[in-house]
């Protein structure tokens, strides 16, 4: 390996390979053969199983190299076998052996890769040898001053300390040939690059003022930790009750036993943020102990089923707003009975209900004509056929038809907006990937008069100029308060300018995450044009730099949250302000 026989510690695999007589030189040659085979497609694939594919000696340099190489590789066939018979016999054996070696080589390569994965090589990572195997260093260089025959021109030359190993090996090049190959013989060997600490590789900085926790929040935490010892919470106020519910959800510690602590006969509003552990009978208990509840929100209510829902039909008589996340088990019949018993429903918001189908929508629209809020998010069976039914809901103000399994079409959505657009204040059509500019220009532009929240995440058909002309023409509508159009890669300068011009002065929340082509100049104007901004997400807008953040901090007095993940132009000098959270500063400059 090295001339002086001093070896550092080696891995068990290296040791094993050395004992088996597998040396780096062999491996290097084998790799060279692989490259040679790729370079010359006419050559029958020079894989190990091609022992019989010994090339006819036609004298070309390439072939010569390959031949020399091949003979090196298949140890036995080193001396061109005199008899074809022997060769045949051998070839199988050789193939097997070579195969085993190939395997070992792969293994070794893999091991090497693991070790060296942090070196940035210009070579293909998968075919590159690990550093230690390079022929440059591995075959012993003859002592300086001795004579050697050049591997290329076969002239005799004197070895100096600048003598270069032939590439591909073996052998060394004379000065002229080395010059001809273009390698700089005076180049100092690259210093081994220092391996980066995995923690340092992706350093994300968040500016986040840690507020001293309030006494109330600490108490809530303590109570939640001892929730099973609490017999009754007493009169701690609605806000604290809600806060306890929230903290319990965070620990996922709400159970059938402690949930009744939050129940009260006087409750008109009840929110359980994580009802994972509640069983169908617990949902019945909920209905019985909160008979007056009008607004009910249950997140992660995966175990609610038809029996619980039909119990609600009889007990939650004053319910008019229902918000469920994940009511997977409820069947078509369950929904229908519920709608029939709750004609007064004004809000029906569900997310993820795979059995909710067309007949359920028909029943909903027929029984609950007063709906103002409707969310059918992540509904598997959602289709264009749903929309004509929804269109007959004349009072709709909040509409969320996001993330269906297959996208709604632009035409159908446009027709729906014609019917219900005039009263809508909140619209979410995220992840409907077929929606194009016509929804905006023909659906919203002429019909939406009151819209204040527009959420169109991940709608890749929208174009920059289409969105720009929508906002330019959107005079019928007052400025929007909340715009979320993240993951629309095609949007950029024009859309942002028009958006800020139309809605800037009232905008509270803006999310333009992944508008990657947006230029620096329009981004810098966000601070000036949207003074009311509270939350801003400009993640993956590549042109965001310190000055964009500075403009936002100076222009928006109420800003509290800025998200800047993937904005590599930011530096550690990014301006910051007390009370403003800046998340995700990720920079190479740190």
């Amino acid at each position, binding site marked *: 390996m090295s001339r002086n026989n001093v070896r550092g510690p080696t891995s068990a695999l290296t040791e094993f390979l050395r004992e088996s007589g597998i040396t780096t030189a062999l491996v290097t040659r084998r790799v060279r053969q692989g490259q040679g085979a790729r370079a010359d497609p006419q050559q029958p694939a020079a894989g190990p199983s091609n022992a019989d594919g010994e090339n006819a000696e036609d004298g070309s340099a390439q072939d010569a190299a390959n031949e020399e190489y091949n003979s090196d590789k298949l140890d036995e066939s080193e001396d061109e076998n005199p008899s074809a018979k022997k060769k045949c016999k051998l070839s199988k054996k050789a193939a097997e052996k070579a195969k085993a070696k190939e395997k070992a080589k792969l293994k070794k390569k893999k091991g090497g890769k693991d070790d060296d994965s942090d070196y940035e090589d210009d070579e293909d990572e998968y075919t590159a040898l690990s550093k230690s195997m390079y022929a440059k260093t591995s075959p012993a260089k003859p002592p300086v001053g001795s004579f050697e025959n050049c591997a290329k021109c076969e002239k005799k030359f004197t070895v100096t300390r600048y003598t270069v190993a032939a590439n591909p090996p073996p052998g060394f090049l004379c000065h002229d040939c080395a010059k001809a190959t273009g390698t700089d013989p005076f180049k100092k060997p690259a210093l081994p690059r220092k391996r980066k600490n995995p923690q340092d590789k992706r350093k994300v900085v968040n500016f986040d003022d*840690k507020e*001293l*926790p*309030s*006494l*109330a929040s*600490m*108490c*809530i*935490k*303590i*109570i939640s*930790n*001892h929730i099973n*010892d*609490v017999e009754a*919470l*007493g*009169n*701690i*106020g609605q*806000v*604290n009750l809600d806060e306890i519910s929230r903290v319990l959800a965070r620990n996922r510690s709400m159970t059938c036993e402690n949930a009744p602590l939050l129940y009260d006969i006087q409750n008109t509003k009840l929110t359980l943020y994580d009802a994972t552990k509640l069983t169908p009978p617990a949902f019945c208990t909920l209905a019985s102990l909160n008979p007056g509840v009008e607004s009910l929100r249950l997140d992660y209510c995966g175990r609610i089923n038809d029996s619980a829902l039909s119990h609600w039909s009889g007990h939650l008589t004053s319910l008019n707003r229902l918000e469920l996340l994940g009511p997977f088990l409820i069947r078509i019949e369950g929904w229908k009975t519920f709608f029939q018993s709750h004609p007064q429903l004004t809000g029906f918001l569900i997310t993820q209900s795979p059995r909710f189908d067309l007949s359920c929508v028909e029943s909903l629209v027929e029984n609950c004509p007063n709906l103002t809020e409707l969310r059918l998010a992540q509904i598997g069976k959602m289709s264009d056929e749903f929309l004509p039914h929804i269109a007959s809901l004349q009072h709709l103000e909040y509409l969320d038809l996001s993330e269906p399994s297959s996208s709604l079409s632009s035409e159908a959505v446009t027709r729906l907006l014609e019917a219900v657009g005039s009263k809508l204040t909140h619209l979410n059509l995220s992840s409907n990937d077929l929606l194009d500019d016509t929804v905006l220009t023909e659906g919203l532009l002429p019909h939406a008069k009151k819209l204040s929240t527009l959420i169109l995440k991940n709608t890749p058909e929208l174009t920059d100029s289409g969105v720009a002309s929508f906002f330019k023409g959107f005079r019928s509508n007052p400025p929007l308060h909340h715009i979320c159009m993240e993951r629309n890669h095609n949007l950029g300068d024009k859309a942002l300018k028009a958006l800020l011009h139309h809605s800037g002065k009232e905008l509270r929340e803006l999310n333009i995450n992944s508008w990657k082509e947006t230029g620096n100049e329009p981004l810098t104007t966000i601070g000036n044009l949207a003074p009311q901004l509270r939350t801003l997400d400009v993640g993956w807008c590549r042109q965001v730099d310190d000055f964009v953040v500075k403009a936002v901090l100076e222009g928006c007095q109420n800003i509290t949250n800025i998200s800047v993940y993937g904005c590599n132009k930011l530096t550690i000098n990014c301006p910051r302000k007390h009370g403003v959270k800046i998340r995700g500063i990720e920079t190479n400059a740190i």
Partner: protein
Amino acid sequence: MPRDVDMEGGGKSDWVRITSVDGFSFMVLRKVAMGSGTLKNMLSSDSNFAEALSGTCPLQERAVVLEKVLEYLAYKNTYEENGSKDDLEHFEKRVPPEIALELLMAADYLES
């Protein structure tokens, strides 16, 4: 034993007295008491409340709860101003769980 120390705050005592419903009274620094929104309003010099004039705030809380509230206010006063929060003690550990609910209600009332 109120020490009448004249401070720049209009000759008002630097200390205020807070009494509990079961007859205990606590002397705390005025600026510590000001950490609570409710006490701040009570003691505000703009108002003409009896509390502001006498520098005494009677609170309808038990002493054991009140003591903890004032302890928190002192803690808040100590740590809120100095920037480094690395050496922050965990106040939670100093709250016995049996008074947590009562403390929550007191904290809610006192806006602390």
